[in-house]
């Protein structure tokens, strides 16, 4: 009997180990310039700094870091020095919540930028809201985060007053992709795959609705397990479904291998995804099979905006090791939104931080309006960005740095 119980203990320990690895996050403190003296205001950053999604996460951290450095350099807020405190959530909701608690406990933190994943945001919102700490996400696109779980049923209700975002939502990202692919790329039969996570499933659903509304046909659906890289069986189903398009709701660590494997299996259909696959790493992972694939992303390509030239130049000058990736501009703008709000609070209080600075910052966010890297930055009554630009990108070459090329930018015009 000893052996049987050994197996049982083993199973229990394995489960324990699983949790441990998932929570193995690290603090990555980045001490900003302390030269300014006076009050220090910390802007928290929560993003996956390690693990599969770290390419996007590090871009977020670096961009926020750049924003605070510039604010300090310009002495933008009198007597206030900004610093960042970057925490790693590894894309895990549990780590995100722990990090939120940690940021809330630090009295110097007056705002947080992040997270990357909508599912992580869900776990953080209440923690921040209870502490009246403002959170601005550069990347969350799930509509429910700002408009409540019933957003699709017509009853929009903002669940948390402390939550804002500079990214636009999947409520328009999915349909925008559907309109482009059905009308312009002339794709009629789609196979829809998602990873069942908040972001992926939501995006896939909004795409599917619009695509069928336009007259397209869904020839198959599949949910994948994001822990695996073997999509052999799914790839075979896709090939046999005769789809001329595969929509993937999820992120690049799975989208890359999926694109590769479905084309190796013999499918000619391009893979399409949302901003979660718009990353240099997608090209690395999908290789030559990824050429021709599409992604939509929020806003206009940063490189094309005149307002972004300065950001790109400064980013280069700051010498970060990692690229700013899809959310760099949005993260920079998110950080600046907090800086602007802090400035207003300080100015209204005779150049000093009031005792209830956190609550005042949330109030000030409503009126924040400035020209950012990604265009005009301001928020509507739900905390959503008023800027609703979107762009379709396509992989043109296998070079990860320059493979993604914008094919069409625009604003989604709803059919409903």
């Amino acid at each position: 009997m000893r052996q049987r119980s050994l197996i049982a203990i083993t199973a229990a320990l394995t489960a324990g180990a699983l949790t441990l690895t998932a929570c193995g996050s690290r603090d990555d403190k980045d001490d900003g310039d302390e030269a300014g003296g006076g009050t220090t205001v910390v802007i928290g950053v929560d993003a996956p700094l390690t693990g599969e999604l770290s390419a996007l996460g590090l871009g977020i951290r670096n961009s926020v870091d750049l924003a605070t450095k510039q604010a300090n350099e310009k002495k933008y807020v009198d007597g206030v020095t900004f610093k960042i405190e970057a925490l790693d959530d590894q894309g895990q909701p549990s780590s995100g919540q722990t990090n939120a608690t940690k940021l809330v406990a630090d009295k110097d933190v007056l705002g947080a930028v992040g997270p990357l994943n909508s599912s992580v945001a869900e776990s953080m919102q209440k923690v921040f809201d209870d502490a009246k700490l403002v959170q601005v996400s550069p990347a969350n696109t799930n509509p429910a985060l700002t408009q409540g779980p019933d957003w699709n049923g017509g009853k929009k209700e903002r669940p948390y007053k402390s939550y804002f975002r500079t990214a636009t939502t999947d409520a328009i990202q999915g349909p925008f992709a559907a309109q482009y692919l059905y009308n312009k790329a002339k794709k009629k039969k789609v196979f829809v795959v998602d990873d069942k996570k908040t972001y992926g499933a939501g995006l896939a659903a909004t795409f599917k609705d619009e695509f069928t509304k336009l007259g397209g046909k869904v020839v198959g659906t599949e949910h994948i397990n994001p822990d695996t890289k073997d999509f052999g069986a799914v790839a075979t189903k896709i090939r046999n479904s005769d789809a001329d398009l595969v929509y993937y709701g999820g992120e690049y660590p799975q989208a890359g291998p999926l694109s590769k494997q479905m084309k190796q299996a013999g499918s000619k259909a391009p893979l399409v995804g949302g901003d979660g696959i718009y990353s240099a790493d997608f090209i690395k992972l999908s290789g030559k099979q990824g050429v021709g694939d599409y992604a939509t992303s929020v806003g206009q390509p940063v490189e094309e905006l005149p307002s972004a030239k300065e950001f790109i130049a400064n980013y280069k000058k700051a010498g970060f090791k990692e690229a700013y990736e899809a959310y760099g501009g949005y993260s920079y703008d998110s950080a600046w939104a907090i800086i602007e709000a802090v400035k207003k609070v300080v100015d209204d209080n005779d150049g000093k931080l009031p005792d209830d600075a956190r609550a005042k910052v949330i109030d000030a966010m409503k009126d924040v309006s400035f020209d950012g890297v990604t265009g005009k930055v301001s928020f509507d009554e739900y905390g959503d960005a008023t800027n609703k630009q979107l762009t379709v990108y396509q992989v043109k070459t296998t070079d990860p740095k320059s493979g993604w090329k914008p094919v069409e930018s625009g604003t989604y015009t709803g059919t409903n």
Partner: protein
Amino acid sequence: MHELPQQLVNGLLLGSMYGLIAIGYTMVYGIVQLINFAHGEIFMTGGFGALTVWLWLPAGTSVWAALPLMLIGAIFVSTTIAIGAERFAYRPLRGAPRLAPLITAIGLSLALQQAVWAWYPEAKSARSFPELPGGSIHIGSVTMQPGDIFLLITAPICMVALGYFVMKTRIGRGMQATAQDPDTAKLMGINTDRVIVVAFAIGAAFAGIAAVARGLKYGQIDFRMGFILGLKAFTAAVLGGIGNIYGAMIGGVVLGLAESMATAYINDVPGMDKLGGQSWADVWAFVLLIVVLLVRPQGLLGERVADRA
């Protein structure tokens, strides 16, 4: 059902990889009754060993020419780590209660994972791995990649070689003797320490080969890949009858086929449309494991042994 042959091949490929890794679990368990939970990470480090060799080679080297060197690199790294683990983490605990080495194994597994995370350049996200050149191969309605062919050829060769080794060589027979009764084997003049090291090394070498196969198949490796695959391989070893080397391979293939069949067909079973697809494949694989263990607690090829504890 016209996709059935392809799905069978998909399952066979996945299963061969599970099987190659499962041999490491089963051999070590068969001889020292230790579930070496660091084995998944030993597999992972093998992959990074092969990648290192590839990065050292001058740019433009053909993958075919590099493959033997990459295999050597993978096997070198994985066996070195396995032998080191045996010597420094498990041997000092050999007389201790069984739970102690098990906990050490899990600790070692986390340590290896974090070591690669921390020190291997750019290993914080997935690293791309070279792929075998050449287009896909079509046999009837089945499509396969050169990397798949590598796996399909390597797995049986490894099995046959291992079978020969265990049955025909002196040290192989020493292994069998040690597995049956380590104390008596020692009295008969068998160097059991050496036998145990060899068991660890063979398991690790197979894991190294599996890591190269995985890299070639998916074109990427990452520091976390050993965890899930290790768990699946352990499941395969239990399914096949832990301690039995052929059982490990068969358990792997059965598990792989179960996953691929579940993904492809459970959806089509009336009333099961919500319980199918790839996200449910693991669930069905484990349901299969439970059923097998209920009907045949010793696993598919395992023998019912008297408890020695």
